[in-house]
């Protein structure tokens, strides 16, 4: 297939393509090696060996001490649910308080509602205008009742990185377990579960060009976690269900490649991201870059375009073959503007003009330049229809 058919894809935090070698590695397990890893016979055993290989490679990606600390799940959402429910339920005799940031992915923001219904007490921290948690607030907020703290490593909506190592140190000192949702960072930037002092970590294959359907929860040795899924004793009794062998195999290989390619990919994405950011800020007035200026994911650019709504920009961009995302209310199914942006104190009207670009290893300078060519006229076109722009212009023309 010709690459130019695909247009310009800049939504890698939502989904990323498979590496060709990953697809190749998965195919046998979708064809002749279709066995169930729990089966006694040799076909089953082959598949079991394959997932154990993948487990080692996944552990290696995050510098886990032992592959047995990796529990494979179907997706990042499952890993997050597993941690957020499995830990409080396992440790409820120690306490019933959970502490989370307000900018977590929905799989955590909604899981805590379930926790509250179950009778746990949940406190949400605050974030600054960049969406960053203050470790001192974590220190003040942990009580003897706190069994779990959960703060994501990197935010997929605005790109901000959290001070995980500092928070990990505090949690450890205070005796609370610490989980981080690293779906946006694992396989993208180097990380080490020891350096970060985390007890649990969520990661997902699609973030590093592995398949959908494979993810993992890292659970430090010695930590109990109540299973989410009851059934057979797969994953050492922690996660029942016949393993998605092809996807797990894909995840393992993608993790191995990610270790090798991480620095190259990071530099590549960051250069393009910076070029895109400079270009947008230069060519379009009344646009603001969101997220932390330095502590951020290398491949994400989040901007807010004033006076215009996100979905309308996305539609015009899509007509030009450019595919991105937005945090506007119209885009979300709940018709609410991004909770991340609201927590950052961004004005709801401005948050509606959110555009989210996430670059990948296959993006080129021409892709960035195409956006820079096409976006300014789109914005102007929509501003010419906008009552907010009109009012603002009238105010300045006075």
């Amino acid at each position, binding site marked *: 297939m010709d690459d130019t058919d695909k247009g310009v894809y800049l939504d890698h935090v939502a989904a990323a393509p498979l590496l060709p070698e990953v697809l190749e590695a998965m195919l046998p397990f979708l064809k002749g090696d279709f066995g169930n890893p729990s089966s006694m016979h040799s076909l089953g055993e082959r598949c079991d060996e394959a997932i154990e290989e993948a487990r080692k490679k996944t552990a290696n990606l995050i510098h886990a001490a032992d592959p047995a600390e990796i529990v494979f799940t179907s997706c990042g959402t499952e890993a997050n649910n597993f941690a957020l429910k499995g830990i409080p339920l396992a440790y409820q005799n120690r306490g019933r308080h959970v502490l989370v940031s307000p900018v977590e992915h929905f799989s955590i923001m909604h899981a805590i509602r379930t926790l509250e219904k179950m009778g746990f007490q949940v406190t949400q921290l605050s974030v600054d205008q960049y969406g960053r948690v203050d470790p001192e607030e974590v220190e003040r907020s942990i009580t003897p009742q706190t069994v779990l703290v959960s703060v994501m490593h990197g935010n997929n909506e605005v790109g901000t990185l959290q001070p995980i190592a500092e928070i990990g140190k505090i949690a450890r000192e205070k005796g609370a377990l610490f989980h981080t949702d690293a779906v946006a960072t694992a396989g993208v930037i180097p990380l080490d579960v020891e350096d970060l002092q985390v007890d649990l970590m969520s990661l997902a294959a699609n973030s590093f060009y592995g398949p959908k359907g494979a993810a993992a929860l890292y659970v430090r040795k010695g930590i109990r976690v109540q299973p989410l899924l009851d059934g057979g004793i797969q994953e050492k009794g922690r996660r029942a269900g016949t393993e998605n062998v092809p996807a797990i195999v894909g995840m393992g290989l993608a993790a191995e490649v990610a270790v090798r390619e991480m620095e190259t990919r990071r530099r590549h994405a960051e250069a393009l991201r910076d070029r895109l950011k400079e270009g947008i800020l230069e060519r379009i007035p009344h646009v603001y870059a969101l997220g932390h200026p330095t502590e951020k994911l290398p491949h994400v650019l989040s901007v807010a375009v004033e*006076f*215009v*709504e*996100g*979905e*309308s920009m996305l*539609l*015009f961009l899509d*007509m030009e073959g450019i595919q991105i995302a937005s945090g*506007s*209310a*119209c*885009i979300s*199914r*709940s*018709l*609410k*503007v991004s909770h991340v942006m*609201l927590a950052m104190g961004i004005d*709801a*009207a401005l948050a*509606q003009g959110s555009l989210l670009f996430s670059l990948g290893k296959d993006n080129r300078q021409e892709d960035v330049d195409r956006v820079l060519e096409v976006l300014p006229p789109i914005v102007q076109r929509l501003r*010419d*229809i*906008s*009552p*907010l722009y*009109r009012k603002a212009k009238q105010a300045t023309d006075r």
Partner: protein
Amino acid sequence: MKYTQKVMDHFSNPRNVGAIEEPDGVGEVGNPACGDIMTFTIKVRDGRLEDVRFQTFGCGAAIAVSSMISDMAKGKTLEEALQITNNDVAEALDGLPTNKLHCSNLGADALHAAINDYYRQNSKPSREARPADRGPSGKKKKEGSCRCPYCQIEVPADSPICKGCGSQLDRNE
């Protein structure tokens, strides 16, 4: 987003964009926190809408709805225009995705607000809008109530769960 061709046409080539210099009526509805604002200005001659212009901040559906309703209303008498319902607009656009039906409410509201503004300015009583825009119980839509974005039934403004489809309804604080 699954938009019909008519919606995409009105979105890409909106009709009647602008603001009338000295309008006979102005209607503005929505708020930026929800993601949609529509401002309609009208020119009235002999009880008919001689001109209708709109400005909209909002998604594809919002812009398309504004464009379509301004087209439908132009040239009609004020009473006829008041009878244009959100369903009429959605139908004229060959349908809207369910979670976008609220945009059609907004368009109709904005046009009717402009007409009622004209009536107010000319010391005439405000008119009842669109009998079609009533909930399943047939009662008029109350102030402070809204519609479930998923199944469109009327729900009280502070209800956390939709009684129709069970979806959780979040509110912006």
